[in-house]
């Protein structure tokens, strides 16, 4: 069967068009892939911006918290001690040496107490720097401060050893979460005992804080959109890829479990 020139021409034209579809689709694929890469880079940059902003906010909150504590301590504690010292020295009667001796001893003791409190305050100021030295040190410093008030018995344990390189940013966020939780316990829980466990795992860090306080209804708090502190804790943990589990019931205390993946 002889094929005419027209038929051959049609076949050739069709075949050429079909073959030219290959480079056309290749180019289309390249355009689409390039656009996706661009979107991915932009999303990554935005996420980094959000993370950096959150980090700065965390650092500022830690500083604010520290300043607040220092302010309260200066006013309530050291201020009182120094006022008492001043009163004691003002009431000295020079013609009564024995009573003068007693009052001077009392004034010296009050002064030494003030110096001790000032040193503690100094350590607290140093607290932010402790995060850079290690999360363990920073949390221990917070624990010491809480125990000093005498209101709480704090049991702090560290399990395991860090097998990965420290990430100061994640340490800072975890430290801030710890501070937030402890603040909540002090303000709302009416607890007597606080159990803090810091565990170093192969894949990350696990922090567990249990108190024997009044507890609360977790679902109710979330429904009524109260508990900004809790929301903040969850948000901060999510930013560094972590998870937060909160277990609490009225009258039965609270257990907060946080896992942050490292590195």
């Amino acid at each position: 069967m002889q094929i005419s020139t027209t038929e051959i021409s049609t076949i050739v034209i069709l075949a050429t068009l079909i073959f030219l579809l290959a480079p056309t689709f290749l180019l289309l694929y390249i355009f689409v892939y390039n656009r996706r890469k661009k979107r991915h880079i932009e999303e990554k940059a935005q996420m980094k911006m959000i993370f950096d902003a959150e980090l700065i906010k965390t650092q500022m909150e830690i500083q604010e918290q520290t300043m607040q504590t220092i302010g309260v301590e200066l006013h309530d504690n050291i201020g009182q001690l120094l006022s008492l010292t001043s009163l004691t020295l003002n009431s000295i009667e020079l013609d009564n040496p024995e009573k003068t001796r007693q009052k001077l001893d009392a004034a010296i003791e009050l002064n030494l107490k003030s110096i001790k409190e000032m040193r503690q305050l100094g350590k607290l100021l140093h607290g932010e720097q402790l995060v850079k030295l290690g999360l363990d040190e920073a949390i221990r410093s917070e624990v010491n401060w809480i125990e000093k008030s005498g209101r709480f018995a704090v049991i702090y344990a560290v399990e395991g050893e860090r097998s990965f390189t420290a990430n100061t940013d994640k340490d800072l966020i975890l430290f801030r979460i710890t501070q937030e939780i402890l603040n909540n316990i002090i303000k709302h829980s009416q607890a007597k005992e606080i159990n803090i466990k810091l565990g170093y795992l192969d894949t990350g860090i696990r922090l567990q804080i249990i108190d024997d306080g009044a507890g609360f209804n977790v679902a109710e708090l979330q429904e009524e959109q109260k508990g900004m502190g809790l929301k903040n804790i969850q948000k901060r943990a999510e930013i560094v890829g972590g998870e937060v589990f909160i277990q609490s019931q009225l009258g039965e205390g609270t257990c907060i479990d946080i896992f942050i993946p490292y590195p």
Partner: protein
Amino acid sequence: MNKVFSTNIIVELLGFVIAFVFLHKDNDKVWKSQVLYLLIVVIAESSGRYMIKGVHYKNNSWIYNLLLIAETFSLTLMFNNILNAFYKGKLFFYLGLILFTIVYLLELIAHGFYIYNSNCDTVMSVYYCTCCFFYYYFLLKEDGFHQLYHLAPFWWVNGVLFFYFGNIICDLFFSKFSKMPDFYLRYNIIQALIIILYICWSYAFICKYQQRKLAQ
């Protein structure tokens, strides 16, 4: 006038003019060399046409054999320049030249200088298409993204891919049909491919010019 200029040659002449306008002050010597190459193409094509239509010579294939040398040199140099952004060294340049030299010489030995080296043309077309695929592969592999609409090498490579890919198909089909009378289909297809090539190349030259202006 018809003895010298055909649609193809007019398109090539326009391509040369655009190349000259946008590339004559370019800092990159390889891109600038495109102006010279396109001038050689216009001269060769119009001379070839004049020889047949004007003075009625029997054979103008030797002109196209000479053009093949200029084409290979220019394209391999450009590919080496473009691919250097991803792969350092002159591998693509030397590989292209070695491949061309071997096939060209074999064909010259087989049938002399006055018959067109069509096998060499086909082999080099395959080589250019391969270089195009390498370029796209390196482009996709990169972490960053590019503004493809303004990327001069991208459009230059696109033009080459469409023209030489289509050229391979034509060579495969028309080796069977070239002896058929009144069979002008190949000429029409090549014409369409040349238009696509020069549109892409002209846009590439404009993008190169814009890139130079932004860098100043």
